[in-house]
């Protein structure tokens, strides 16, 4: 499951961080540093639980890198496969809402009619504090 999440996250990412592979390894051997892994885990809340997971990420990057074989010089990037569709405009009427009971049904904890969340953001433990490759 997380491998797919990684791949999806990665694809959209590629567009914005073209220099990624060169950042990890200028020679192009495709190694991803522990620093980058930690950064990714923090950003996307995915867990690279094992060395295999990291290897899979590296393979995925190498696979996607083949896109570079295509010469896109002077070609406008496609923003969306929907780019020639019409963006539907909705009238400004109130047609939904008023379903607080249904919404709270799946909430783990509720106080009056509020969802309950932990205070602020819980920071991830640092790399050295974590057990490096523990399986969930």
């Amino acid at each position, binding site marked *: 499951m997380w491998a797919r999440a990684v791949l999806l*996250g990665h694809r*959209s*990412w590629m*567009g*914005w961080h073209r220099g990624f592979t060169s950042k990890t390894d200028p020679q192009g051997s495709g190694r991803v540093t522990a620093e980058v892994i930690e*950064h990714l885990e923090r*950003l*996307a*809340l995915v867990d690279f639980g094992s060395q295999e997971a990291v290897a899979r990420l590296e393979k995925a990057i190498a696979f996607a890198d083949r896109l570079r074989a295509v010469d896109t010089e002077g070609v406008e990037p496609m*923003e*969306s496969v*929907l*780019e*020639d*569709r*019409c*963006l*539907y*405009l*909705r*009238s*400004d*009427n*109130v*047609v*939904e*809402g*008023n*379903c*607080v009971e249904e*919404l*709270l049904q799946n909430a783990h904890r509720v*106080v*009056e*009619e*509020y*969802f*309950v*969340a*932990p*205070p*602020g*953001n819980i*920071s991830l433990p640092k790399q050295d504090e974590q057990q490096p490759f523990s399986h969930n």
Partner: protein
Amino acid sequence: MAAPMLRGRCLGRCWALACIDSGSRHGRGAATGFTSSGKRGQSFVAQQPLLTAQKSRKGEHKWAAVVGLEIHAQIASNSKLFSGSQVHFAAPPNSLVSFFDASLPGTLPVLNRRCVEAAVMTGLALNCHINKKSLFDRKHYFYADLPAGYQITQQRLPIAVNGSLAYSVCVGKKWRQVITKTVRIKQIQLEQDSGKSLHDELRSQTLIDLNRAGVGLLEVVLEPDMSCGEEAATAVRELQLILQALGTSQANMAEGQLRVDANISVHHPGEPLGVRTEVKNLNSARFLARAIDYEIQRQINELENGCEILNETRSFDYKLGCTVPMRDKEGKQDYRFMPEPNLPPLLLYDTASLPAGADPQQVINIDRIREQLPELPSETREKLIQQYGILPEHSFALLNEVGLLEFFQNVIKETRAEPKKVTSWVLNIFLGFLKQRNLAVNESPVTPSVLAELLNLLDRKVISSAAAKQVMDMKRGNPRAINKLIGLVRKVTHNRADPTVIKEILEKQLSS
């Protein structure tokens, strides 16, 4: 652009301005308006910062501050930006939330036409170039009040760019000269608001209300063309008035409909810009200028003590009156912007490019919107000056209070007194009367007709100025009593009567 010089430790004192809390219904605070005696009340225009005579210990150091703003205005619409749930302040928690707002799987965003129109109107009013094609993106970060884990915004290609906002600054010793300053608008974009977090320190938990999640926002980005808190506050005030005139946002800071973040840095003129800090969530008009000036001074102090400024995010502590670093911001945020895959590009048209036979509900014509733009505050002020010959600063004051302009115009209609007289009465005596009793214009027991009558009597020299003031003031502003009094006076003075007689009558009535 001439940036004011700030010497050494002491920030040039900017005169308190921009009747800053007039965004709220009751313009509480000191009376606005200028009198020829130079009475300094809170007003609407910024003063340029004064140079102080003080020299710093190290000799003369000139600092210039650079202030940019990111302003979020809640769009005045019935439903939210991408869903059909209601937009309303103060409702039972989570009652105005649709499945999309709660980010339940399987839901998709559907763009609200009214929000797009509001963005175009605002862009046009601020002299922006409207992008005929704009795009939506996802900005990712984790927080409990952002159920999707991302906010839909317009980072790459927003709906409007490259505009300007003009605001007025008083110069000179007697504030007579009003000069116009401009701040460039980098862009205006449509984006979603997040829900509200209520922190419960005691039980170590946060309560989440998603009523606000998904409400449409206009983010207006102002370039760092401002140089002190007062300029920033005045620009914000003018933007508030424009949004209210357009009807695109009620822009009430007290109700969270207008929120401001400031980007502040200091440098020596001629040298490169300094490191900037971001001061977030300046949600009070009253404290906006103060917070910015505090941060400017803090940075100057730090640099003069040989310390460095960190590129960090801070928030303003209203109780302590200072900016403090915000927790939860570890290093620079990486928002992982990506195109919103569920929304095609937003296309806008003008009369020339409008596709034939298009469904009018589904297309937005920029030209049509431009034609229907209401009168902007700057135009209204200009008209007042032209029509009634009043001073520019008075035209500002008339627009600075909700309902005051209408009141003024109604009085003018019914009275033969000179506009300058009416202006003086409305801005000084009437407004002062309201402030004393903490009333809004629409709560005034003194109606335009009553004031018009009073001014007529004054004009005909039937009653004295002092008597007129007394009438307004008397009997805790009971309107019936005032009318009765006026009626009495008129009856008695069918022909011009002896002023002492009038005075007696009035005094008798007033004392009873």
